[in-house]
C-alpha cells in the first residue's frame, strides 16, 4: 500500500510539471487556435536565460521574476516576427513554422550553451517532507503549488477581466473582434507572451529534476501534449487535471505492469492520447462548441 501511495505522490509531482507546460499549450491554442510545437523549446531557452542570470549573481526569486518578464516579451516578439507573416496561411503551415522554431531554438541553445548538462537550483529546500512512510519532495510540492497558483490567476484573468474576454474573442472570431474595436494582432501577441511565461515557469521547475540541456523538454513536451489532450485543449483546468492524471498513470503503469517498467513509460502518454481521441475527442473538460448552421 505504501508503495502505491508513494507512486501516486511522485506521479502527482511529475504531473504538476506536465501540467504547467500543458497550460502553456492550451493558452496559445485558446488565444490563437495554433498548437505550438515550440512550446517546450521556448521554455528550455527561458530556463537557460535564468541560468545566465543566476550565474551573474542574481538571487533566485529576482531571477525567477525577471525570466518571466523576458519570456513574456520574447513570446510576444516571436508572434510578431515569426508567426505574423504566416498568420493567414493554412493551419498546417503554421504548425510547420512552430516545428521549425523548435529546431532553431534547440540548436541555438546548444550553440551558445553547449549540449553538456548543467545543474539548475531549486528554490525549495532539499530536505524531503515525510508523513508516515510517504515521502514528499519539497521541490515537487512547490512545483505543484506554483502550477495551481498560475491556473487560478489564469482563470481569474480570462473569466473576469475585459482584456481576458477580448483575448478569447480574438481567438474565436478575428473579424467580429475587429468590429468590436479589439486590436486582434495585439491580443495574439499577448497570448504568445503569456504562454511563453508559463513555459518559463515549467522550464525552471523541470530543470532541477532533469538537469538543464537543450533537449530537456523533448519528452516532457510529449507528456504535455498528452495532458492537454486528456484534459481537453480548450480547458486550462483540464490541462492541469490532465497533467496530474498522466503523471500518476504513467507512474502506476510503470510500477505495476512489469514489461513497461521505466523504458516504455513514454508509450503510456502516447497511448493515452490515442484512447482519449478515440473515446472523447474534446477531452475530459473540453467544450465541444455548438454551432447552428
Amino acid at each position, binding site marked *: 500500500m505504501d508503495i502505491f501511495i508513494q507512486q501516486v505522490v511522485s506521479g502527482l509531482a511529475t504531473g504538476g510539471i506536465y501540467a504547467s507546460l500543458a497550460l502553456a499549450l492550451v493558452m496559445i491554442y485558446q488565444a490563437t487556435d495554433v498548437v505550438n510545437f515550440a512550446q517546450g523549446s521556448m521554455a528550455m531557452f527561458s530556463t537557460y536565460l535564468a541560468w545566465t542570470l543566476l550565474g551573474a549573481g542574481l538571487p533566485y526569486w529576482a531571477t525567477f521574476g525577471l525570466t518571466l518578464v523576458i519570456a513574456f516579451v520574447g513570446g510576444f516578439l516571436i508572434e510578431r516576427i515569426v508567426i505574423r507573416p504566416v498568420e493567414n496561411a493554412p493551419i498546417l503551415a503554421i504548425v510547420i513554422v512552430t516545428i521549425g522554431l523548435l529546431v532553431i531554438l534547440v540548436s541555438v541553445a546548444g550553440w551558445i550553451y553547449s549540449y553538456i548538462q548543467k545543474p539548475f537550483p531549486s528554490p525549495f529546500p532539499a530536505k524531503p517532507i515525510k508523513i508516515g512512510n510517504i515521502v514528499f519532495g519539497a521541490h515537487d510540492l512547490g512545483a505543484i503549488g506554483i502550477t495551481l497558483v498560475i491556473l487560478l490567476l489564469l482563470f481569474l484573468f480570462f473569466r473576469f477581466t*475585459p482584456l481576458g474576454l477580448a483575448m478569447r474573442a480574438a481567438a474565436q472570431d478575428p473579424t467580429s473582434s475587429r468590429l468590436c474595436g479589439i486590436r486582434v494582432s495585439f491580443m495574439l501577441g499577448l497570448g504568445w507572451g503569456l504562454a511563453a511565461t508559463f513555459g518559463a515557469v515549467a522550464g525552471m521547475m523541470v530543470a532541477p529534476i532533469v538537469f538543464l540541456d537543450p533537449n530537456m523538454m523533448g519528452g516532457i513536451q510529449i507528456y504535455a501534449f498528452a495532458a492537454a489532450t486528456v484534459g481537453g485543449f480548450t480547458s486550462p483546468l483540464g490541462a492541469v487535471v490532465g497533467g496530474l492524471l498522466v503523471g500518476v498513470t504513467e507512474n502506476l503503469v510503470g510500477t505495476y505492469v512489469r514489461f513497461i517498467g521505466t523504458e516504455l513509460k513514454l508509450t503510456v502518454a502516447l497511448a493515452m492520447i490515442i484512447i482519449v481521441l478515440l473515446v472523447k475527442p474534446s477531452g475530459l473538460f473540453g467544450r465541444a462548441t455548438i454551432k447552428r448552421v
Partner: protein
Amino acid sequence: MPALLEADNLHAQYGGIKVLHGLHFAVETGGITTILGANGAGKTTTLRAVCGMVKTTGEVRFDGRRIDGKATEDIVRLGIAHTPEGRGTFVSLTVEENLKLGAYARRDRTSLARDFLRVYQYFPVLGERRRQQAGTLSGGEQQMLAVARALMSAPRLLLLDEPSLGLAPLVVKEIFRIVRSINREEGVSVLLVEQNAAMALELADHAYLLETGRVVVAGPAADLKKDDSIRRSYLGY
C-alpha cells in the same frame, strides 16, 4: 445639416476583381439610409468598404473626417458599429459576454450597467438568455444579439447588413421596429443594406439602388417607393 457619413467616388476590390465602381452616397445625421440591390450588386462590399475591411480608393468621411485607409478597429472606435453579414456572433461565448465585447472599445465605462438594462429592454429575450452560449440562440435571436452588441458600443452610426436574411417575417418586423426606435430615441443614424426592398423603403428616408457596383437610382425613399417603373424593374414587387 451636414451628412454624418459621406462616400465620394468609392471603389473597392477583392484581389484583382473590382466590385464597386465609384459610389457616391451619404447618411444624414439622425437619418436612415438604405442601399438596395440584387445579390452581387455590391451592398455588403459597400459596408465593408466603409469599415476598412476591403481594399478601397476614393474618399469616405465620417463627421467630416477622412476614414478611408484606416484600420477597421480604429474606424469602429470612432463610433461606427457594424453588424456584419452572418451576424458575427461569438458562438461559444455567452450572450452577456457578447454584449460586453460590444462595449469593449468604449472609453466611458461608467454608464455600462445602464446600457445593459437598456439593451435588455429593447430585447427582453436576450435578458432571459444572457448566461446561455450564444451559439444556441435561434437565427432571429442571434440577429437581435448582433444589433444589441452594436448598440452597446454607443455608436453614432449603425451599419446593418441584411438583418432580414433567413428570418421569419414576424421576426423581421420586430427587428425593423426596434431599429426604428433606436434611431428615434437614441439618435443613432443608420445605413441599412437590404434585399427586402419593401420593408427597407418603409423604414428609410433616403435610398440608393445599386446595380453591379454602381448607383443607378438615388433619392428620398418615399419617391422610390412611389415610382412604379423603378419598383417593377429593380425592386421586383
